[in-house]
């Protein structure tokens, strides 16, 4: 099962490597990892997507909470939550495919943020699975590069972590 774990982390040097080190030392997998400052300058939020059965995810959350720099660690997937990911995709374009690609971008509510004679760079935000779907619909040979931020998320409603 895919789980999204949201971590509030002391903004200390080395805190990131503690979390990353925990995952590698204990053999937990990381699908994506995203970390950035929050409105509280002493805290960062890290969001990790991991795949594992319930026991493994329970150990991950417990092990994270045990790290001294971790203030809270929550498995968002066990609550109602919002998840988003941002992606930039650079594509080669030509006269034959241009129209179809623009249709696809519109359909996914994407934006062309950079264009050259032979390329488009497209910005797309949404749930990871819709970003996956966008990629899958493209002719693979057109893709020059893909850069994704990894998932970030929050709990729905008045709850926070």
């Amino acid at each position, binding site marked *: 099962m895919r789980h999204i774990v949201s971590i509030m982390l*002391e903004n200390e*040097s*080395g805190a990131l*490597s*503690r979390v990353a*080190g925990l995952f590698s*030392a204990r053999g937990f997998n990381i699908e994506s990892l995203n970390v950035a400052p929050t409105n509280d300058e002493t805290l960062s939020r890290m969001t990790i997507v991991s795949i594992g059965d319930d*026991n493994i995810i*329970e*150990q991950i959350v*417990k*092990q994270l*909470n*045990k790290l*001294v*720099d*971790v*203030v809270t660690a929550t498995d968002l997937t066990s609550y109602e939550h919002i998840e988003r990911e941002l992606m930039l995709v650079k594509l080669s374009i030509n006269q034959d495919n241009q129209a179809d690609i623009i249709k696809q971008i519109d359909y996914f509510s994407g934006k062309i943020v950079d264009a050259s004679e032979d390329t488009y760079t497209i910005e797309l935000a949404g749930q990871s699975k819709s970003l996956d779907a966008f990629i899958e619909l493209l002719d693979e040979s057109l893709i020059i590069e893909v850069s994704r931020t990894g998932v970030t998320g929050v709990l729905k409603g008045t709850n926070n972590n």
Partner: protein
Amino acid sequence: MMLNGAEILTNSLIEEGVEYIFGFPGGAVLHIYDALNAQDKMTHVLVRHEQGAAHAADGYARASGKPGVVLVTSGPGITNAVTGIATAYMDSIPMVIISGQVPSPLIGNDAFQEVDAVGITRSCVKHNFLIKDISQIAVTLKKAFHIATTGRPGPVLIDIPKDITIGLSENQVYPNTIDLRSYKPHNDIDKEQINKAVESIISSTKPIVYSGGGSVIGNAASELRKLTRDLGLPITQTLMGLGAYPANDELSLGMLGMHGTYEANMAMHHSDCVIAVGARFDDRVTANIEKFCPNAEIIQLDIDPTSIGKNVAVDIALVGDVKATLKELIRALNGRSKSDISKWWSQINDWRKKKSLDYKKEEGVIKPQTVIETLYDVTKGEAIVTSDVGQHQMWAAQYYLFDEPRRWINSGGLGTMGFGLPAAMGAKLAVPDRDVACVTGEGSIQMMLQELSTMLQYSTPVKIVNLNNRYLGMVRQWQEFFYEKRYSMSYMDALPDFVKLAESFGHVGILVEKESDLRPALVEAFKLKDRTVFLDIITDQKENVYPMIPSGAGHHEMLLAGEDDMVSTNDEGLNLV
């Protein structure tokens, strides 16, 4: 008043109540050594190798319950200490390690004697700090001691660049208490879980207490005894838990696990209610996890949520401090009538009749088991016994019947050869009035021999009981059982003359080759109150540790001495260590 960083550091250590620092100097910590020289509240013990410093601090901590303190220089100083830090980490021992670092502006430049101490130790400390600002010295020390000693204890490292020790600052008040928003050890008790545990215990007809190192670390021996005796429960203890419950007591079934007793393992296997107290279901204890306690409801009491349900699914989790939680459990059980367990006891007493620790004496050789039994006799069971790692460690655990906690000091989780001697030195400093024996093997002792020199300098008289079987015996045993007697590299040729060696370090050496000399030699050694005595005891070369659960087998599939000659294991078993 303006002080330099090194002075603030040493003042903080004094404020914390530190008595002993185990350390070794070098460039990055010279300012700290200068500040140490100017005070007389703390004694610095100059070890001969930084690994010895960490083990000595560890032995001090295990014997006293107080945190051990280590001071080492940057680079090779801290890398040498890593084995000792990892040893303490695996057994949850409180320790604070201060390592010097190259000056802040040079960090990252591959400066002389630079290593990333925080990075290297990250996975074997509870937490670590790099001090970047002189104003943070006192508060970081307080944080380190707080984290090391509360919750599930463990080592905490402080890396301090040389320029921070030299710089000047206003005097810093050492905080009395500290509150960290991201570190809150669990200390509330879940009443609902307690009630569930009570129901499970009173309705059980085959209960057993399985107690571990947490009962020692959490100073809960008296609560553990009360719970067990109030209900008349059978109790087994892990290697790390020995002594919390007296081994001589009739309710005690001895140690469980790979080299545990037949009755302890059989009782675990057949139990319907296992009460785990500060024990972490280690693989040496559970044996084949698929065959572990097939019929039991498992209640686990532990302060660390990650210990619960990690290896074995747990039915009732009591997260919290062992002492407080046991008190609550005892209170909740008070007055409740429980199931009759007399049938269970008669079954256990039948298992006891196997006498799984019996061994055959042989004419002309000294049996290692006899040495430990005699050591027990001569010290009336009241010594602190440290050990190294190997067969001798198991025999010490099996035949020295520990009746009190903090008397048995060994490396269980990491299994570090070389631990025993420096740990004995630390324990002797912590409890100077008690006899301290170090049970070791000719292999292990050679890993930390140099500390004999430190022991002379600081007058820490210890009796070293070297079970000299001329083999890396534990390795030899596995090769005999599982590798068709191909004894690859488990025989040590060209051993030193340990008696002369001890004498060259200024200690007393005694060679024991005949069983009739054993008791007199031990008696004489313990009479020499203020001398370290090295007893080199030539023991049976081919003796094995029994009973044994071969890798891959279950608790009910033990191998007993004399019953089975050849052991086999399956491929899955061979994969295990």
